[in-house]
C-alpha cells in the first residue's frame, strides 16, 4: 500500500510564498492498493492535482469522505475524473439524520455555489453511506467509525495484506477528557487506529493555541501525540495544518513534536509532519522521514 499526500492543510486553502514547502491545499490523500487500484481519502482542494495526474488511468475510483466540511469536499467540483464519461466514481461518507449523502453533497454541487448539478456530471457517480461493519474495496478491507468532531464525521482504517492505514484527519479525542487516563474503550478512534502501520492524524494547533479552540473538533500537538502513543501506531503523520501556520511555524512545531514524542518514549524517526506531494510506501517498512523538518 502506498500513499501520496495531495493536500495536508485544514480549514481553508492557504497558498502563498509562506506555505510552499508544506503546501496549501486542503485534505486529500491518494492510496494505491496492492492491486494497483486507487482509493482517495477526502476531496479537499488537493484532489484537483490528483485528478490531473490520474489523467483517466483509473476509470473506477472510490472516494472516502470523512465528513462534508468544505475543506474536505471543495475539490470534488474540480476533480477531472468527474468530467470523463468513462469514469465510475463511488463516493462514501457519513450518514446523517438530515438528508442522504447525495443530497448533502448536492448542496455544494448545485446553484448558486456551482454551475453544474450532480446529475449533470458526465461520469457515473454513486453515493454510499459508510456501513457500520467492515467492507471490501478491491484487496482492501475498510472500516469506518464515528469520531469526535463537529457534525457526523468518520475516521477510516484501510487494511491491505498486513499493512494498515488509519486516517483521522479531523479529530478532537481529548475533548472533555484526559487521554492519558482514559481506558482504551473510551477513547474516540481507538479501535480504528490501534496498532496501525501508519496513523494520519489531526494536529491543527500548537499546544498554546488549543485552549482558544476547545470544542472546534481539532487536536493540539500534545493531544495528537498522546493519542498516537495510546493507540501504539507504528508511524504517525501529523496532518490538517492550520492555515495560519507558515512553513517556518510548522518547522518549529515539528521540532517541538519530535522532542515531545521522545519524552513520551517514541522514536522520532516514526513521526513526521504531512507535506504536500510526500509519498510513503507502507509495504517497504520504515522509510527515512525526509520531510520531518519540512526541508
Amino acid at each position: 500500500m502506498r500513499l501520496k499526500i495531495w493536500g495536508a492543510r485544514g480549514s481553508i486553502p492557504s497558498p502563498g510564498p509562506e506555505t510552499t514547502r508544506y503546501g496549501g491545499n486542503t485534505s486529500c490523500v491518494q492510496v494505491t492498493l496492492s492491486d494497483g487500484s486507487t482509493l482517495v481519502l477526502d476531496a479537499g482542494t488537493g484532489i484537483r492535482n490528483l485528478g490531473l495526474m490520474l489523467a483517466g488511468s483509473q476509470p473506477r475510483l472510490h472516494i472516502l469522505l470523512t465528513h462534508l466540511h468544505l475543506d474536505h469536499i471543495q475539490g470534488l467540483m474540480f476533480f477531472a475524473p468527474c468530467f470523463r464519461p468513462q469514469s465510475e466514481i463511488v463516493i462514501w461518507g457519513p450518514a446523517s439524520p438530515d438528508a442522504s449523502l447525495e443530497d448533502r453533497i448536492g448542496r455544494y454541487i448545485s446553484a448558486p455555489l456551482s454551475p453544474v448539478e450532480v446529475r449533470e456530471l458526465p461520469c457515473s457517480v454513486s453515493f454510499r453511506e459508510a456501513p457500520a461493519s467492515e467492507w471490501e474495496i478491491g484487496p482492501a478491507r475498510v472500516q469506518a467509525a464515528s469520531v469526535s468532531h463537529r457534525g457526523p464525521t468518520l475516521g477510516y482504517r484501510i487494511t491491505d495484506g498486513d499493512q494498515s492505514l488509519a486516517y483521522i484527519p479531523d479529530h478532537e479525542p481529548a475533548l472533555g477528557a484526559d487521554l492519558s487516563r482514559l481506558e482504551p474503550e473510551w477513547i474516540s478512534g481507538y479501535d480504528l487506529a490501534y496498532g496501525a502501520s501508519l496513523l494520519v492524524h489531526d494536529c491543527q494547533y500548537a499546544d498554546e493555541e488549543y485552549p482558544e479552540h476547545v470544542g472546534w473538533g481539532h487536536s493540539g500537538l500534545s493531544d495528537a501525540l498522546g493519542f498516537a502513543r495510546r493507540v501504539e501506531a507504528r508511524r504517525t503523520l501529523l496532518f490538517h495544518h492550520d492555515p495560519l501556520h507558515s512553513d517556518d511555524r510548522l518547522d518549529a512545531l515539528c521540532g517541538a513534536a519530535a522532542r515531545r514524542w521522545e519524552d513520551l518514549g517514541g522514536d522520532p524517526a516514526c513521526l513526521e509532519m504531512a507535506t504536500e506531494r510526500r509519498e510513503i510506501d507502507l509495504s517497504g517498512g520504515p522509510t527515512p522521514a525526509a520531510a520531518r523538518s519540512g526541508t
Partner: protein
Amino acid sequence: MHAELESPGDQQPLELILARNLLSSISTPGFLVDKDGMLVFFNEAAGALLGKHYEETGKMGPDDWSRAFGPYDRKGRPMDIDELPLTIALREGCPVHDSLTLQSFQGDRREVEVSALPLVAANGGFRGALAIFWPTGARGKR
C-alpha cells in the same frame, strides 16, 4: 479484529464516549447505560449520591444495578427493572421523567427526580441511554 494486533477492548460508540465526557464535566448526578442496559458509567456526583465511585463498582448488568440502588416508587414499593426511567428510555426510545427513591450502598435513601433520554446516533443506530438525577426539592436551587 485487525490484521496485526488484537484490540484490547471493544470500542464504545462515539455517542457514549461524548456522553461520558459530558457527565464527567458536570456536577449533576448522571448514569450512562449501553444499548443492552449495561451500566457503563456514572459520574462523581452520582457516586456521592450512591456512596461509591464508579471506579469501585465498574460496569454492572441491568439486574445488578437495578437491585443495588433500590429503587422504590413514590409509595415506597420496590420498583421492577421494567418500570425504571432508564429501562423505559431504552425499551421505547423516548425520554422519560419520574420521581423515585434511590438507596445508596450504605443503605441511605434519597428521593430523586430522574430524567432519562435515549442516545441515537446520526446514522439512526441506537446506542444506549443517559439519566440525570435531582434530589427532590432541589428544583430551582442552584
